[in-house]
Every structure is written in C-alpha cells, then in structure tokens.
C-alpha cells in the first residue's frame, strides 16, 4: 500500500526517482585517506529493484563506498550516480530519494522510539498525517509498537537496531542503504530482520546491503559483490559465484580468491 502525501511542496522519493536509469552506477571510484586507499577503482552497476549485497571483511571499503554514495564523503576520483543523479552535483535530490541505515544505531536516546521516527519524518518535510501513517505501519511490521512509547535509552540491542532500520525507511525511500543491519542481533531477531529486508524487495525497493555475514548475503541477495582492499574481486548471483569458484558457500569463494577467510578481518 502506497501512502500519499497531501502536502503541496513535498517531493516524495517517487517524484524524484527515474525508472529509466539504473539505481546505482559507480565508475572508477577511488577514495584515499592520506596514504591509505580505501576504495580502489571500483566499477559497479545495480539495477532497480535489486537486493544487492556488498560483502567483505572489515576495512575492505564497504562503508566508505556507501558513505560516498550517500554524500558523506567526496570521492578522490571517479563518478557515482544514483537514479541518474551525480552524487557530486545532485545531492539534494538524492537525499530525498534514499534511506540510510548506519552501522551503529544513531538516534536520540532521550526521545521515545516514536518521537525519533517522527523527528526524522519531519526532516524529510513529510506532512503530519503521512508521518503518522508511515510510523504506525513500520512499527507494526517490525513489532516495535509497544516499545516505541518508551524512551530509546532502555531498548535492548535488537530493538535499537530495529528502530535504526525504521528511521531509514520513514520517507519510503526508493533506494535503501543498509550498513551491517544485523550486527549484534540474536539469531531470532536476525531472522525477523531478514524477513523484513526481504519484504522490501516485494515493494520494488532497491536495497544495498553491506554485511560480513555470509549466510545473510546468501539468503537475501539477488547479486553479491565481494570487495577486498577497496577492489571488487567477484560479482554475480550467489549461485553463479558458487558454481564459478566450485565452492559450497560465499566464504569459500572469498577464500579461493584471496587465500583468507572473510571472518579473519573481523
């Protein structure tokens, strides 16, 4: 169900989204921090509606790539486009189009869960009715309705991560960046979050998921890009990669290419 806004000047992600452009195009992207090259000539295209997994050990360049795409970092070289908009030139439009779930739960702990969600809805200039409807819908989907009335300070680790995810979705974004969304969750909460992330695909969202959980990428993603030392070392559907590298799982694929385990870097 798509909830529409009555507000005249409000530009929804739907209004900005260009269905004829690819969701994400990355061309020769380089990011250096002094002598360290975090992203080294990355090339990647992600289709609309795709659930794409960016897999790699800690420090591989996953978060740096995401930070460039969402405008938190400027690339040293190269270009990146989101729905046809250049991230170096059209950041204002891009910000209205995307939703970002950072690695660490980031919101105001002295506010209740609901107040936090409403605050971020206001930052997207959504009208009050729309914020209320979206908030209720997302809380219902994640089962956080009761807890949302309490201050976030008292939330469990799993609840904090769920709220982190809800805030990223309040503006009903067309393209969603999820940076390690299930780190620290117990297996049950992780399963539930996987179901939730899977449901985003049914809503025709493009999702970019960074993770170092192999089973998460295998269970959820249409395609996976394995990144190491800032370079894309493998790209394809999980099935394609397993066949190509004659491996039982993506961990095996990574090991065959690099001689290391993904989890060694964690």
């Amino acid at each position, binding site marked *: 169900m798509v909830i529409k806004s009555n507000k005249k000047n409000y530009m929804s992600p739907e209004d900005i989204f260009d269905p004829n452009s690819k969701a994400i195009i990355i061309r020769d992207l380089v990011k250096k921090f002094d002598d360290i090259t975090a992203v080294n000539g990355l090339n990647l295209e992600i289709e609309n509606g795709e659930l794409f997994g960016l897999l790699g050990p800690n420090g591989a360049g996953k978060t740096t790539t995401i930070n460039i795409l969402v405008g*938190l970092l400027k690339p040293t070289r190269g270009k990146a486009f989101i729905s046809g908009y250049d991230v170096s030139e059209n950041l204002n439009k891009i910000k209205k189009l995307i939703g*970002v779930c950072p690695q660490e739960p980031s919101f105001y702990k*002295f506010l209740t869960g609901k107040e936090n969600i409403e605050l971020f809805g206001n930052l997207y200039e959504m009208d009050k009715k729309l914020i209320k409807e979206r908030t209720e819908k997302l809380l219902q989907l994640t089962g956080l309705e009761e807890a949302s009335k309490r201050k976030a300070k008292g939330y469990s680790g799993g609840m904090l991560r769920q709220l982190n995810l809800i805030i990223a979705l309040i503006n009903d974004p067309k393209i969603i960046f999820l940076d390690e969304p299930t780190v620290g969750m117990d297996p049950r909460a992780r399963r539930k979050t996987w179901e939730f992330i899977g449901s985003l695909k049914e809503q025709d969202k493009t999702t970019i998921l960074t993770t170092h959980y192999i089973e998460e990428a295998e269970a959820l993603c249409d395609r996976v890009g394995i990144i190491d030392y800032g370079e894309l070392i493998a790209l394809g559907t999980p099935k394609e990669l397993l066949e190509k590298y004659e491996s039982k799982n993506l961990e095996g694929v990574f090991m065959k290419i690099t001689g290391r385990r993904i989890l060694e870097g964690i």
Partner: protein
Amino acid sequence: MMQRVFALTKMLLKKVIREPAYLFLMILFPVALTLTFGLAFGAIGTSDTSSPTMFDFMAPGLFAYACIFIIMLVAQSFTDDREQGLLKRINVTPTTSGQFMGSHLISNMIIAIIQVAVVFIMSLFMGYRPLGGIIGVLMAFVFMILLSLCSVGLGLITASISKSSGAATGISFIFILPQMFFGTFIPLTPTTEIIAAFLPSYYVTSSLSSILNEGSTINSEILINLGILAIMSVIIIIIGMFLFKKYSKN
C-alpha cells in the same frame, strides 16, 4: 524548511527537560545560584530593607552567569551528536547545516529567555527591587538573547576543538571562567577591566546594572554596549559555524 527547524528545536528543548544534567545546568543551577546568593547577601532576615544590599549589585550579573553555561551545553550536545553518529545521520537527510545550526540558536535563545525569567522571579523573592520598570526587564531579555547567541558560538568553537564530550566539558571552561570572573558580579580592577572588554558577558552586566540598579533609561552607552554585543555575537557565531563545519568535514 521551517518544519525541520521546528522539529529540531523541539527535540533540543526536550533534551534539556529530559536529560537531568542539562536540566540542572540550564534551569536548576540558576535557581540554586540565585537562592544561595540571595540568602547570603540579600535583605532577607535583615532589619534594614531600605538601603541596597550586596545582592542588589550582584543580581544583574546573575542573569549573565546562568547564560554563560550555555557554552557547555552546546559543546557537549554537538560532541555527543558527533560521537553517536547523529550528525552524519542528519547529514544524509535533506536537512542543511544552516537549519541544524539555526535550531540550536533558537532553542538556546528560548533557554536564555527562561533563565532570565527564572532568575528574575527568584531575585524578586530574595528581595531584589529593580529599577528601570518594564523597559528594564525587556532590555534584560534583549541582552540575554544576544549573550545566548555568543554562548552558542563559543560552544561551537569548543566542540570544534574537542575530541570527545568529556573534553568539551573541560575545554568549555576556557570561555566560561573568564566571563564568570571578569564579566558578571565580581568587582573589576583596571587590569581585569581590559580583559573584560573582550568578554560578551561584561557588556550585558554593565548595561543591566545601569538600567536595573541605577534606573538609567536607554542612553548612548547602553546602545553602544548593545551594538558591541550584537557585533560580537555575529562574529563568534560565524567563527563557530565555520570551524565546526570544517572540523566535521575532516
């Protein structure tokens, strides 16, 4: 645009109410301070209520005293937000840095107004009888709003050079202590008067003492002080915003 500023301002005011440390620093501390000074130096309990007390001379400085601590509140707030990734999170929404800073300015102006009202009411309870009438009270609000802007700017400068909120608390005293000692109710010597000329709170206390204690109407000296304070607040805010933006990018 206003929707974002309003939502952020509301959130910042809730922070002051819900975080005990901030509530104490911004509202309870000025109350306690006025009560303590009022009891120690005021007319309560004395037989002579006609001649001015020490507290009467201190009261204008108490207005400024409370507002100076906004420096610490802002410095802690920005460093906390930075440490918890909140600045980044807000940065990926369409909110501009101007809207974010603007909400801090508005919320702290509101806090300054509440502080003036609280200190004023408490002072009256402690026997303070200001001259200057309603104009005097209004001028107190105007001066305090400008002082609150200076404090936000100094808080931003503190946050820019502080690596953590703990460090921000300590570093904020670089700007708090000189204003406390040379810009409020402590008598100045010719030497300390030179230092005081560079402190925003000096112009507030000096003007409010003239209006509230001496019954001066708005004269050229007070208007010059107001002008100096306004220029100071603009310069400090610009430096604070510039440094904080630069630091945040790094």
